[in-house]
Each structure stands twice: as C-alpha cells, then as structure tokens.
C-alpha cells in the first residue's frame, strides 16, 4: 500500500462519516460508492466494517446500523434514554407506538381487532408501521393478520415477542 493509498483511504473514511452523518435515511452502499468517486462495493464494505469497529468502543455514542444494502448511523441503545428528548422530530408518534405495542402484546393480531380497540386511526398506524418494516400484514379472510417482524425484535433488542409481553407485564414501579 503506497502512502497515496493511505491518504485516499483516510479521505474516503472522512467522506463516509460525513455522508452517514448528513443523511436522515438509510443510505444505499451504491450511493456511498459514488460519494467516494465510483469506488467498488467491496471497498465501501471494508470501510463500513472499519467504521463499525471504531464505533463499538464504549466511548462512542453511535453505532452503524446495516440493513440489507444500506447503512445508517444511529444513537446506541444504551444512550437513547438520556438524549432522546433532544431530538426535535420524535421517532414515531405516540399513538402509532401504542398501536404497535398492542400488536406486539396480542401478537399476532387481526387488523379488525386492533381497529376495534384503537379506533379508525389504527388503519393509518398499520400503514406507517408496515412502511417502517416493523409490522408485516398477512391477508386473512376479510381482514389482515398483523405480525411484528424480525426488524421489530432487532429494534428493541428482543429475542422474541414473548419477551416483550414479559416486559410489558412487569410492574412499572420496578422500572
């Protein structure tokens, strides 16, 4: 590796961090490759790997979320509780979150049962949750059967949906 390669690599790592910092959505590897001037996907993967390794250090507050062909920086789960209030655009509106909680709690749950419990707005909630990849709809007769996805489990660091039920039923005074 020549010193010029090192310099290029250094610059590319900086560009990668800058690109990940600026985007609000998961960014496809192809886009990252083009930011680095038509680099190969392999090279992008190498740099992402390195970055993920650096972020794993305990003094770092961010982590690299890789999903399918995309990458995204996000606040580490261990830090979220202390900083969430600083984000002006709150994640998912509370009513949508409540619908999600209900689906997870009664998993799997029919859409009609959800709508009965949560009102007509729940149709919109389901749509949003499906778009976010947290809920998967399955046609069942005239209604939909709603499942939470693996993505849901990963988001919340859960092993299974039963674990969520367990958390939900634990007395809040202990929390």
């Amino acid at each position, binding site marked *: 590796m020549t010193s010029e390669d090192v310099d290029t690599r250094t610059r590319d790592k900086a560009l990668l961090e800058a690109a990940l*910092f*600026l*985007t*609000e959505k998961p960014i496809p590897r192809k886009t990252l490759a083009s930011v680095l001037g038509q680099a190969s996907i392999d090279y992008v993967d190498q740099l992402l790997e390195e970055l993920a390794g650096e972020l794993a250090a305990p003094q770092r507050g961010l982590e690299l*979320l890789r999903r399918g062909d995309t990458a995204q920086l*996000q*606040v580490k789960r261990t830090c*979220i*509780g202390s900083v*969430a209030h600083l*984000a*002006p*655009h*709150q*994640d*998912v509106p509370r009513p949508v*979150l*409540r619908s999600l*909680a*209900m689906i997870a*709690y009664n998993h799997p749950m029919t859409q009609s049962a959800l709508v009965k*419990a*949560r009102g007509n707005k729940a149709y919109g909630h389901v749509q949003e949750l499906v778009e*976010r990849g*947290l809920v998967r709809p399955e046609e069942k007769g005239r209604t939909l059967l709603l499942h939470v996805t693996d993505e849901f489990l990963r*988001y*919340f660091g859960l092993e299974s949906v039963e674990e*969520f*039920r367990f*958390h*939900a*039923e634990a*007395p*809040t*005074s*202990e*929390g």
Partner: protein
Amino acid sequence: MDSLKIVQVPVEELIGESWEGTLRRLTADMDPWDIDITLLARRYRATLRALEDLSFVIPGRMVVTCSILLRMKSDALLALGRPTDQEGLLDELEAAIDETAAQEAPPIDREEFSLPLVRRPRRRVTLQDLRQALAGAMKVSRRRAERLIDSVSDEEEDLFEHFELGGEDISDRLRSLVGKIKRLLSGRRFVSFFRLLERGDKEERVRRFIEVLHLTAQGEIACTQEEFLGDILISRGEES
C-alpha cells in the same frame, strides 16, 4: 404535610416508591378509620408535583391513583364525608386501577420501547450555494425593480395621457377626500395611501395620487415616503 416536606423525604425513598407505598406514607398520621380524603388527595397531588420538580419519572399508575383520589375527593365532598378506612381505600383503588389498566394498551416502558430517533440533519452551506444564492438574489431584485418601473410607466402611458387635470368636480372631490382622511386619521398620526382607495385599480390610484398632491400643495395634508416607490404615509398638514 406540604410539598416542601415531601421533598424532605429521602430521595432514595422517593425513587421507586409504589403508589401503595406513597399512600401509606401520606396517611401515616391519619386515623385509619377516618381517612381525610380531601387532605390525602391534596398530599398526593403535591407528591406528584414534587416528583415532577425533581424530574423523576412518574409511573402511570401514580397518575391514575391521583386522578382516582381526586374523583373520590369530589365524591366525598358531594356526599359530605364517606367513612372509609385505609385498607378499604387501598382495595378500592386497586380495583379501580386494574379496571383502568385493563382498558388501556399495555404499559410502555420508555427505555425498553422507543424507536430509533429520526434526525433532520441540516448541512452547512457551501461557497457554491452562496454563489448560486447571489445569482438568485440578483435575478429577483432585478425583477422587483423592473416590476416597479413597469407599473409606474404603464400608468403614465395608459392614464396620465388621458387624465383631465382638475376637471369640474375637482374641488368637490378634494373636499370629500379631506373629510375621509380626517376620519381615518382620528387617533392616528399616519394613514396609508392605500387606505384611500376603494377599487384599487390603476385609474383610481392615479386619480387619488393627484388629489393627494393637490391637498399636499394646499397644506391640508403632509406626505412622507420612507422607501423609494414604497407606501405613502399621509399625516395632517400644517393648514388643517
């Protein structure tokens, strides 16, 4: 026991204190056979407020408890005192809370159940952005200037040409305009030229403008225009 005394409860006792625990603490000095529900409701609210001041997480059940206590207080006040005891009170609350909780979605623990946060990062602007902004600004300001010049020259071509200066009814019109301006000026120092218009079309604007010039020349009114081609502010003249 007011909120000040509640704060004096050791913090470690306040942390994680259950709603039952809080009730026991707040009723400790009361006769178990004669709980003062009004006082208790007040104390419970004060506790919540103190927790809020300390930025503690307030469990949903405590809020529910408080609202039930307040409801009981209002019931009690209505019925002028309903005898109750500490254990009975706890039972009643427990049943009410279970009922309320059953109707609600499962409790959400913020720590355990919060989605990744959405950011709307804003990038710093570049020199290129600044340069484009300049081009944009120049274009807009040129258009502004052209629009203003156009509107003036249009009026000159279309209207001044055919406008009869004065005319037979000019004195009547001036008199009525002075009256209108005085009415508009009552309690004010200035009135905008635009307030003198009814239709606002070009012809009316030119006609009014010439009338205003006449009145200014007569000292009935005074005009100021702070900005080039901006609004004309009319005030009382020295003669009026």
